[in-house]
């Protein structure tokens, strides 16, 4: 690989060229930077932002692979029950390369792959292009954070999302959620969630309801006695009893439920979360605080009870496994740039997410899912939380210093 290294070193453009940062990110992909330290600190930790993002990216893999397999199962199961042989859209000829036997594990996985890969490729290309264009014009470095935003956005999409909507969503997320404010490190909203929220409100018919969570259901149409609704969607209408009639708690925990691609398996997501906490990339304070907030709020609502709203009775361990709670908890809430950045602030921030998500899920009549909105609200709160925490410390410090 010496020739490639020499090639990159020889052709490295001066910093004032417009393509310098594009060149740098490509070089960084192949080789670590060969830059010596200056100043008084002569050695540096081996961890860099690129590695931080790679750890998060790798941590999404279990949820991603399970998501593909699970999506294949539900798609094929639906086709089997309805007696369809075609998915009814352009995916069909690729699906037919393997076959549509619902009992064949490879067919399930292949089905998921055929649906997920186009989404990810589209989102990746559009997202990185937005980042690269802004970096080139604004003359800032291309941050590897965009790689994480794109995979997280893809995993939060429903399986059958039209690709142009996915592209619009990630473009909005990267540009409005991040680049308007100066790029990774300066954004105050999670870019992946900003994009997700945008398409959620812009194209509600493709992003919510009972028809979008099983691939090919929207194309082939509903069949009698088959519901493609998510556990959370059922819960919103029929409460705990409704959910239990369709799924066991174990199924929701291990991920045998329909839903967005990456969100289904709470078990695998929590494993990935444990890895990120061990690697010290994700904040355990935020994760625990969110769980505590969710537990207290859902228990309070269980205690209060309601005759008209069945969601009041859903206990905390169902809240944990249904919907995107676990996915948002591990991958989105812990995003360091948009979270609070003091230790005390992290507790408050996480607690706020936990309380808000249950409030939105249970009390709010419009949206069955609350995690996305809860995290975005908490993102907005984070600077205020930090301000309050540091004001307290600052007040004590100045009082002592001036005494």
């Amino acid at each position, binding site marked *: *690989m010496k020739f*490639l*290294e020499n090639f990159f070193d020889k052709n490295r453009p001066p910093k004032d060229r417009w393509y310098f940062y594009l060149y*740098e990110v490509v070089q*960084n*992909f*192949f*080789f*670590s*930077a*060969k*830059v*010596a*330290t*200056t*100043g*008084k*600190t*002569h*050695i*540096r*930790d*081996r*961890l*860099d*932002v*690129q*590695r*931080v993002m*790679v*750890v998060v990216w790798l941590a999404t893999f279990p949820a991603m692979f399970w998501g593909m397999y699970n999506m294949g199962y539900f798609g094929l199961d639906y086709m089997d029950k309805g007696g369809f042989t075609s998915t009814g859209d352009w995916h069909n000829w690729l699906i037919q390369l393997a076959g549509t036997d619902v009992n064949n594990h490879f067919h399930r996985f292949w089905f998921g792959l055929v649906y997920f890969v186009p989404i990810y490729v589209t989102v990746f290309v559009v997202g990185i292009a937005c980042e690269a264009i802004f970096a080139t014009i604004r003359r*800032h*470095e291309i941050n590897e*954070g965009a790689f994480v935003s794109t995979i997280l956005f893809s995993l939060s999409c429903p399986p059958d999302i039209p690709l142009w909507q996915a592209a619009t969503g990630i473009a909005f997320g990267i540009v409005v959620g991040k680049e308007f404010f*100066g*790029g*990774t*490190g300066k954004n105050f909203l999670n870019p992946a969630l900003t994009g997700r929220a945008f398409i959620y409100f812009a194209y509600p018919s493709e992003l919510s309801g009972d028809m979008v969570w099983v691939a090919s259901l929207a194309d082939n149409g509903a069949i009698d006695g088959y519901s493609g609704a998510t556990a959370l969607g059922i819960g919103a209408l029929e409460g705990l009893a409704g959910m239990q009639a369709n799924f066991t708690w174990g199924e929701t925990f291990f991920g045998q439920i329909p839903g967005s691609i990456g969100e289904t398996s709470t078990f695998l997501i929590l494993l990935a979360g444990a890895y990120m906490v*061990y*690697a*010290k*990339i994700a*904040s355990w304070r935020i994760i625990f605080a969110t769980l505590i907030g969710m537990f207290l709020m859902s228990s309070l609502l269980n205690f209060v009870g309601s005759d008209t709203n069945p969601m009041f009775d859903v206990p905390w361990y169902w809240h944990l496994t249904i919907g995107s709670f676990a996915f948002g908890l591990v991958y989105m809430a812990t995003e*360091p*740039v948009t979270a609070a*950045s*003091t*230790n005390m602030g*992290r507790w408050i921030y996480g607690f706020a997410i936990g309380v808000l998500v249950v409030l939105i899920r249970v009390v709010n009549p419009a949206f069955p899912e609350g995690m996305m909105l809860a995290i975005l609200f908490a993102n907005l709160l984070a600077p205020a939380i*930090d301000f309050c*925490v*540091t004001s307290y*410390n*600052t007040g004590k*410090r*100045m009082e*002592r*210093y*001036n*005494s």
Partner: protein
Amino acid sequence: MKKIKVKGGLNIPLHGSVDNLSNLEEIRPKFNAVLLEDYFGLKPKILVKEGDVVDQASPLFEDKTNPGFNVRSPVAGKVHSINRGEKRALVSIIIEATSNDEPKSCEISSSISQTLEMSGLWDSFRERPFNRVPELNSAAENIFINCCKQDSLILDPSVLIAEEDAYFAEGLKRVRELAKTNCYVVSNQELNLTQAGCEFIIIEGSGQTGNTSAHIQALNPIRKSEKTWSIDWQDVIRIGKLFINQKLCSEKYISITGPSCSEPKIVLTTAGASMEEVTAGIANGLVRRISGSAIYGSHGDSYTDFLTRYSNQITLISDEPKATFFNWLKPGVKDHSNSNVFLSSIFRPKAFNFDTNTNGGFRAIVPIGVFDEINPFDIDPTLFLKSLAIGDLVALRELGIFDLASEDMAVFSYVCPSKYDYVALFNSCMEEIWKEESS
């Protein structure tokens, strides 16, 4: 004997530590220098010319902002060169030693501060918040004597203090006389010394909990109405030698350490010694000579390749940064990181090799929580470091910049995944604040 636990701090396990005094060597280099970067906010009035013959402890330049305080020559000899940098600002004065005579005798006057000034030891003290040499003939409410092992490679100071205990005790007595109320002696090990009026404290913690800022914060935080000085164990020994022997003392114990050092050892040499001469023959390959530790030290060109005033250590690090193919997938069995992202977090090697690679590109600050974890000081690190990066002087004052010194920023620079240099940012912010406060 009081024991205090301080959380935070980071020990960076490097190869090449010094653990004992077994191979102590004495080196008297030909070239010695005084460096201006050691003195914060000093405006020099140069008193010598190139080629002048100077005696030991004869003044080289005076500080216009601190009348009566002179920076003095560490050795007797000839002024070899007066080096200037940008805008003709003084960088260093290099003295070529003529002979290795016995140290000159020194008159002990009744005023301690006068005696220290005449012998070139007044700059042993530094006053917070700016870490400046204090005004002549003043005294402080609180004096902190730092006897901690501040770096994982350096020899524990308690070994040398035990070796020179009579001198240290004498020095302690003299330093105590300059303290109006409190005098704290902070160490990692028990020192087996007593001195009326001094409080002996053992600090338990790793890495930067040995920094004076951490001690001040734990014991007697800085107040505007009180003066707080700090002094290093080495200078206490030197003051002791001055008063007992009644002779000038410019010798220092230096630990020569680091992964690129073939023979880590202790050297008794002069203050401001040429690092090239002191490390001759034990540096492997293309090496960066650092006066200080690997995370907080100075290195430089021929003008500044000398031991700095407040360092007790020379670290040798390979200066050949290498590129790694597909670095982002590297398992990293031999790579140190504070975060557990490499296989080294499972196998836990005892020591690591380092070179001067930044190990990553420069990015915006991504506060993943490493700062909070290793922070031993009473600050909110992420917001503090962000304020440093944007130079927000008002916020920095409130966030506690006056409690800190630039050495405290080094560990944050080390762990920063975005590869910021917080030491440099801290120094430039402090200079701005000093300009505002002193005008």
